[in-house]
């Protein structure tokens, strides 16, 4: 099945390359004529260059864009949706939507720059645990008048899961190396929102994670010895540093992969390793977290 899907998509991808090359060639010629026309102060050449540029853009819009959109949709339906549905049953996949910046801000777990983008929102359930995942990119674009540069605060997958334990306070676990978090631990944070550092009895866990919480006892309730072991195992499985947050009875799992997954490449041929395996890894990121932490255990509630 995988081979059939890949072959079909590969044909579509190959068919996209000629329009790109032709459109690009037209635009390059247009650009050369435009620059050359300016150099020679030849108005006719400039005008022809501009006309050619318009033709090139129209060609892109008519011959390339619709095909590319169809290819992307086919890719996402037959690879992303199919792989997720194979693992989770019925899911909802909104490729152009994601978590809102306000939602991330409301958690108070991350520093937010002035650029934010989120897409590939997938909603589903696994072993009774409802989840949502989305690709998230948080950047800060800075300029000093002479030069400008962009700092990436976070790029990766953000997953929210319903918790099987009820909690009333926020808690944040930051793996060593995960940057640009918001800890809310300073004296300038409102006392009711303030988090403080807490250490657990597992030295290795304390070395790998830093925990900020609003209530010590709830921290020990949520982060049991089993959870500590499970989280250490989990970080060995996923590719990237993680931050786990507990907020409003939702568990937020941010994995900094540094890549925008679930997107087809135009220039390289489709392969199982490059196109299907990463989607399977996205699935594993969710299932192994739920499995390792035994989140399906339904013994909690009603006593908090």
């Amino acid at each position, binding site marked *: 099945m995988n081979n059939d899907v890949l072959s079909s998509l590969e044909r579509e991808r190959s068919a996209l390359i000629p329009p790109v090359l032709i459109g690009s060639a037209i635009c390059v010629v247009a650009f050369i004529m435009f620059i050359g026309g300016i150099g020679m102060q030849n108005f006719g050449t400039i005008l022809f260059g501009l006309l050619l540029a318009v033709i090139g853009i129209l060609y892109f819009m008519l011959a390339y864009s619709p095909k590319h959109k169809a290819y992307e949709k086919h890719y996402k339906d037959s690879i992303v949706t199919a792989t997720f549905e194979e693992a989770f049953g019925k899911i909802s996949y909104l490729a152009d939507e994601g978590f809102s910046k306000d939602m991330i801000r409301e958690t108070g777990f991350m520093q937010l720059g002035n650029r934010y983008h989120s897409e590939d929102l997938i909603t589903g359930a696994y072993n009774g645990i409802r989840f949502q995942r989305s690709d998230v990119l948080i950047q800060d674009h800075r300029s000093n008048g002479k030069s400008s540069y962009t700092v990436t605060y976070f790029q990766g997958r953000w997953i929210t899961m319903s918790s099987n*334990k009820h909690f009333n306070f926020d808690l944040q676990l930051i793996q060593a190396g995960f940057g640009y978090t918001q800890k809310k631990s300073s004296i300038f944070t409102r006392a009711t929102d303030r988090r403080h550092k807490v*250490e*657990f*009895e597992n030295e290795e866990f304390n070395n790998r994670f830093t925990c900020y919480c609003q209530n*010590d*006892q*709830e*921290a*020990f*309730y949520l982060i*049991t010895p089993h959870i500590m072991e499970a989280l250490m195992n989990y970080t060995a499985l996923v590719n990237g540093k993680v931050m786990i947050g507990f907020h409003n009875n939702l568990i937020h799992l941010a994995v900094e992969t540094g890549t925008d997954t679930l997107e087809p490449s135009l220039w390289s041929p489709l392969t199982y390793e490059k196109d299907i395996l990463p989607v399977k890894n996205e699935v594993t990121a969710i299932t192994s977290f739920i499995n390792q932490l035994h989140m399906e255990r*339904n*013994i*909690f*509630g*009603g*006593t908090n």
Partner: protein
Amino acid sequence: MLTAIITIVVIVILIGLWWITTMNGLRRLQVKIQEAISGIDVALTKRYDTLTKMVEVAKSYAKFEKETILETVKLRQGMSMSERNNAMATMDEARQGLNILAENYPQLHANENFKSLQLSIMDVEEHLAAARRAYNANVSQLNQRIIMFPTSLVANGCGIMAEPFFEAESTKREDVKMDLNI
């Protein structure tokens, strides 16, 4: 001469600041320990209440002798750690007895109320374990700090003593012994 006086004054001020900061840190740990103790007490009370409810349900199905054991548990404010340990060990025994009883009486095992109480007590026990771990973590921090020099000077000066740990349940540390003569 003036330089020497200023140096001494600065050193005294620095020592004073260090003393106050260290004392506050130790006091903060003591407060955290008290918070954890109250968490343990809340969880113990909840556990006792839930066990009592389970016994009530069990009594309608079978004669439950462990009921009398549960009656010996005395929960009160200001208990010592060893009293809390004893209360917990007694409750462990009653809980074990209830589990065995449920295994021997399928009707009790199938009772919805009993099943819900069983789930409830598991959650209560998670809270109890969390409170105990929080207490022990804070006690460990305090005990480590007050034996270290020079913090030990501040601890002795302020009368801050080492606190006892809340031991893990003895029944959990021993091999499981099945008592089928209930």
